[in-house]
């Protein structure tokens, strides 16, 4: 008994401490949704901290100190990671980074991308074709010579696993500043969008980024309120199989949260992970019999294509009686999907699409990212 009491006292004390630390550290940081980063200003210096920047990372935080180009770097920071701002050029290794840069009106700063085939932004594509922007390869296969040759101020990377540190170290050795962007790990749609502040800080555009985010946020919340009290929620099936493995988003993932915010009842919600997981085909079949709506079925763009992908879909009740919508309305010629590019920055538009799909007539707008599959 005594031990239990001591335990509770300790927990209480520790909880109190950590709260205090958080408040002190946050000082002025107004993140409402994003959990993966923190901006802290002290004087002329901005400290960016990124927390657990890859899947399954624990207790990892990376600190970056942003110092204006015209100011000297204080000696106390000499051993830290310094980024001189405002950055004038950048190499982005994910297409979602480009979405943020586009709304900050900084497309001209981009000098390198990864996987140029999968980019949707017309402006960026034009500059890739003219040779102003180069493709620097991807992941472990980065072309370091090309990167060095671009004389960039910063490389923005993301990591699926801890192996990302092997190439961030290599880039740092080459004297190229690197910053880790972990926006893709955010579970909440607004949390993802809030990374605009993180990207904004690099361009010294914190105010623009803040204003932009506030608009997105209030629009998102207003839309959310419209369906908040709906009780008869449509059941939603997500994804499509590869062979017989059917990958579905976890019940706490970005997409699952979007569906729930749009007043839908996601059939995979019982798994509380934020990562995708694989279900068996027969399990998917049972869900497909319950579902009212089926969304995000890969690259399939017509019911005929759905049927040719696997003849067993014929037995899916949702195919006969339900509605099918796919997030392929804004695909580029090469197969880039703007859903993953600007959709990250405009979760309000994705939400509006989903509400239109789930509750036709409630919001009178054209679909942006989604397309009905007939």
């Amino acid at each position, binding site marked *: 008994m005594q031990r239990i009491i001591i335990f509770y006292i300790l927990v209480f004390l520790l909880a109190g401490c950590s709260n205090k630390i958080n408040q002190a550290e946050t000082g002025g940081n107004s993140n409402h949704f994003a959990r993966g980063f923190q901006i802290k200003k002290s004087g002329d210096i901005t400290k960016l901290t990124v927390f657990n920047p890859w899947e399954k990372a624990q207790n990892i935080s990376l600190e970056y100190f942003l110092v204006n180009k015209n100011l000297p770097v204080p000696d106390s920071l000499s051993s830290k990671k310094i980024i001189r701002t405002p950055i004038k050029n950048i190499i982005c290794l994910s297409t979602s980074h480009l979405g943020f840069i586009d709304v900050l009106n900084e497309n001209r700063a981009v000098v390198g991308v990864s996987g140029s085939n999968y980019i949707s932004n017309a402006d960026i594509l034009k500059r890739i074709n003219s040779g102003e922007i180069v493709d620097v390869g991807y992941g472990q296969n980065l072309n370091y010579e090309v990167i060095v040759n671009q004389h960039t101020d910063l490389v923005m990377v993301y990591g699926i696993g801890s192996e990302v540190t092997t190439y961030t170290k290599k880039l740092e050795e080459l004297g190229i500043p690197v910053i880790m962007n972990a926006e893709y790990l955010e579970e909440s749609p607004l949390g993802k969008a809030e990374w605009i502040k993180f990207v904004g800080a690099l361009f010294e555009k914190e105010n623009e980024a803040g204003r932009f985010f506030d608009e997105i946020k209030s629009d998102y919340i207003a839309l959310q309120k419209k369906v908040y009290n709906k009780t008869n929620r449509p059941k939603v099936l997500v994804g499509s199989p*590869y062979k017989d493995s059917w990958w579905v988003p976890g019940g706490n993932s970005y997409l699952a949260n979007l569906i729930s915010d749009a007043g839908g009842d996601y059939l995979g919600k019982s798994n509380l992970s934020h990562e995708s997981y694989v279900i*068996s085909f*027969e399990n998917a079949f049972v869900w497909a019999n319950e579902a009212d709506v089926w969304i995000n079925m890969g690259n399939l763009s017509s019911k005929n294509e759905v049927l040719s992908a696997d003849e067993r879909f014929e037995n899916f009740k949702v195919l006969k009686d339900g509605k099918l919508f796919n997030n392929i309305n804004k695909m580029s010629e090469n197969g880039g999907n703007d859903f993953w590019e600007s959709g990250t920055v405009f979760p309000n538009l994705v939400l509006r699409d989903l509400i239109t799909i789930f509750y036709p007539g409630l919001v009178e707008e054209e679909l942006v990212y989604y397309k009905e599959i007939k």
Partner: protein
Amino acid sequence: MKEENKRKSIRWVFILLGILFILLFISDLLLGSIIIPLKQIVLVFFPTAETNETFRTIILEFRLPKALTAILTGAALSVSGLQMQTVFRNPLAGPFVLGISAGASLGVALFVLGFSSVLVFGLVSVTGAWTLAIVAWTGSFLVMLLVLYVSARVNDIMTILILGILFSSAVAAIVSILQYFSNESMLKAFVIWTMGSLGSVTNSQLSVLTPAILAGIILALVKIKDLNAFLLGENYARSLGVRIIKSRIIIFLSTSLLAGTITAFCGPIGFIGIAVPHICRVIFKTSNHLILIPAVILTGSIVMLFSDILSQLPGMQTTLPINSVTAIIGIPVIMWMIIRNKKFTSVA
């Protein structure tokens, strides 16, 4: 007297394996992510008003084709593995030594990793059920033609073995280059293909798979006598009147048909083809193909049915890739046999 005892015991082993086969086949229909009561399974085959439509679809459209595919896969890979071990007189030979799966994987890699970005939004969808099977089969068919061409001209069987291995390595290198230039989703699609899958074969695909496998097995049965002669060496076989080159071509044709078709529909499924013939030689204590061929067909099917049940993780939402299951359950069995029976590796 001794001979008769042996024959009797072989008959008993066949009966026991047959019972095991039937039990596993029923279990494979019974067990899966969705729990279906035994009574409903009976109702599916003898429909009444009580039959649950969902269960009916799950059993007839998902589990039955999957179980039949498991049987065909086990039988086909084991027979082709046995043939290759005999023809090459090498215990490490398997259905894929001729480069059949390498050819299939090159076809799939070229398609998924090489051209998919062009094709996805064109006429053909990468996810199309038949597309992958067709490209994989084309790949292995081309390799088969190459092997037949070489084996009709080269007398030394070891030359064919070495050429097969070299060809597989060359293909692996090309596949690596394709992987190097692919993005994550393409890589994932390709990697999932290499893990093998029984459950994506549909009833209409089975109607192609089944005759192809039966044809391959019939070719093997026709050549039982020659296979037995090969065990004693090609020179001896020749002295028995076996026409080596012709016989070899028919056996290769059978192997390519069996291994190539399975790889086309289910992906490269490892381990079974090498292991099952060894298991059967130990159980049946014979190297006579008249007994071994039916034995590997039955044992191969049993092992695949069992692996499939495990890979379904009965009662759970998720599944495991079949290729890892066959390796994880099979390798310990083989190790145990090697240690217990030092002689088992000798093919003859």
